[in-house]
Structure formats: C-alpha cells, structure tokens
C-alpha cells in the first residue's frame, strides 16, 4: 500500500481509461485481469532479479523497453479517448463490437482475436513494464533478498513472492478508482462524455512526453 497517492497519480489515468472503454457495469473482471497481468510481470521481474541477485543488471536491459511501453501506454490512452466518442472509426477497443480497420488492425489484431475482456490480461502484462519508482525499489529489495538467500533457486522464489506481494498491495487503490470510473449513475450528457475524451487524450500526450524525457 506504499504510496497510495503515487499509484493513483501515475497509474490512475490508465485505470480510469480502461473503465471508460469498457461496457457499463462490467468493469470488475477486466480490471482484475489487467492487474493480474501487471502482477505477473512484476513476479517475473522479481524472479529474475532474485535469481541473479542484481537489480541494476536487469534494469539496464529493460530500460529501452520501458520507454517504449510508456509511449505505448500514452498512445493507447489517446486511442481509447478518441474512439470512445467515435472521433476515430476504431470502435471501443475492448468491447465485443470492435472491428479493427486499416493501420490499427495490425497493431491490435492479437487483442481483437481474444474475446473481450480477456484482452485486458496481456495489456496488463505489457503495462507492468511501465517505469515506476516504487516498483524499482521493490525490485531492489527483491534482488537483495535473492542475494542474501545464498541459493539462486531460493532467491528466485523469494524475489517472485516479494514482487507478488508488492503487486497485490497496489491493487486496492487502482481497483477502487477503476470501479468509481465505471459507475454511471448521473444523467447522460454527451458534452461531458466528450470532455472526458479530451482529458484522456491530454493524459495520453502527457504519458508520451514523459516517455520521451525519461
């Protein structure tokens, strides 16, 4: 639960964007799958640093990938925002009625092939690589625990379970935010919905700029 504000501030936009792209009232399972994907990635990273006993060795190898993932996240949020109100003919990415066309069909073909909302799990796998200070800190601890265990295999499992515990701690805040964003108990007004779409696009641009500067 370390850094509640940190998690919500940095990853909250993704959780909210995911809810906005999902069918009304069916946000829990997709979010759980998304978080399961994230935690799977954390666990794999924890296993690797625990096995090797080195955080910096692993971190240096994935730094370039993380930059790409951050850009991907920004692009995804922008596309979800634009598609949400039909400003681009892409449909709602994670709904059953999604029919990809043109250039984007190649990029999202795998997601489209999977029945929604199961597509949220692979998205979580990828976005689990987003650069994050608390994740790094947890991986440092996992590497240290692995090094102190003395046995590489024991270190691997220590790192894996440590990162699973860390990942589970990040879920409540983001799940709550995603659930709130999935509620629709106010009067329908398209102008407000379009405003939400604009905010999502702005957040996506923010992610991309941050990635470039990272």
């Amino acid at each position, binding site marked *: 639960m370390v850094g509640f504000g940190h998690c919500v501030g940095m990853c909250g936009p993704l959780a909210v964007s995911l809810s906005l792209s999902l069918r009304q009232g069916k946000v829990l399972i997709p979010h759980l799958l998304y978080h399961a994907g994230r935690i799977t990635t954390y666990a794999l990273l924890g296993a690797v640093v625990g096995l090797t006993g080195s955080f910096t060795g692993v971190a240096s190898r994935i730094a370039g990938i993380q930059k790409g993932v951050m850009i991907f996240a920004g692009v995804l949020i922008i596309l979800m925002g634009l598609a949400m109100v039909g400003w681009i003919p892409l449909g709602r990415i994670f709904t059953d*009625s999604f029919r990809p066309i043109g250039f984007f069909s190649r990029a999202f073909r795998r997601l489209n092939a999977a029945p929604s909302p199961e597509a949220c799990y692979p998205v979580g796998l990828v976005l689990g690589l987003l650069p994050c200070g608390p994740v790094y800190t947890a991986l440092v601890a996992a590497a240290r625990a692995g090094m102190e265990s003395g046995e590489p295999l024991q270190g691997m499992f220590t790192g894996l379970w440590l990162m699973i515990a860390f990942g589970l701690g990040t879920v409540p805040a983001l799940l709550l935010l995603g659930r709130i964003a999935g509620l629709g108990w106010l009067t329908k007004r398209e102008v407000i919905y379009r405003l939400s779409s604009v905010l999502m696009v702005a957040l996506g641009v923010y992610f991309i700029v941050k990635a470039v500067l990272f």
Partner: protein
Amino acid sequence: MPCSPNDRPLSRVVPKPHGGLVGLLLCLVVMGIALCSSSGGARAQGAPAAVDCVIQTGPCTKTLADGTVTLDITPKPVRAMRDLTFTVTFSRVKAAHDPVIDLGMPGMIMGPNRVILKRAGDTTYQGTGVIVRCPSGRRTWKATVSVPGTGSAEFVFDVVY
C-alpha cells in the same frame, strides 16, 4: 468478430459518461493531492527539501550529537540505477550497532530502500545500494544515516540520471 444481437451503431454508443468524468476528476484531484504533498510534504514531515550536499564533488559532513558524520557515495558522478558504494565516517560519534542508510525522495514515498553498512575501519562503515530513478524526472534524493543509540543525520543531494 461476429456481431452481437445487442450491437448498436458506433455513433449511438455513448454510455453514461458521468461515471467516467467523476473518475477522471477524482484522478486529477488525487494527482493534485499527490503533487501538493510531494512539494509540501517535506516541510510537513520536518525533512529538508533543499539540496544541502553536493555529493557529486565529494563527501558531505553533518553534525550529530557531539561529533560529525561524513557521507560519501562512489563512483562519481553519482548516478541512479547503478550499484553505488556508500561510505560513512564518524568523528567523536559512537554507534551501538552498525549504522544504516535509508534512501528516499524528500516529500515522495518511494518505498523502503535501506543500505546495510558494515565496518570497514575504526570509524568507517561501507555498504552498497542503488538509487532508483523516478519517472517524474525529479533528481533530489535524501540519505538518512541512522546511528543506533545516537541519532540520525540527513543528507539531501542531486543525482544524475
């Protein structure tokens, strides 16, 4: 992907938006709180927010009890995401047990990051650790040297990314 009988034309797919707006506004409010707390939290927590140690050029010394604590980090330049050696030297300071260094960012919770120090001389302790990189771009970090039975000294410095 086959059509569902419940499919609606894309132009008519406008579900109730306000939950989304509520969520986004909530997110913006929380982000604002997080940003405000990161800038004011240092003062609220009594920790220095301003850099008081130029670790890139050499060791830094602080007063503790009736003596001094000197911190040095190598190699130079002190970079994030690298294995670093932390060296603490005491003058007229007695440690009941091995001291430790807690690394963090002033006003921002990054999780516990402790450097375990071992005796490397009569008054010198050394340990290895990593200063992680914050995606926000902030480069100011704080090293709190805790001396069991005596107290602690804080060093605030900038790192290179």
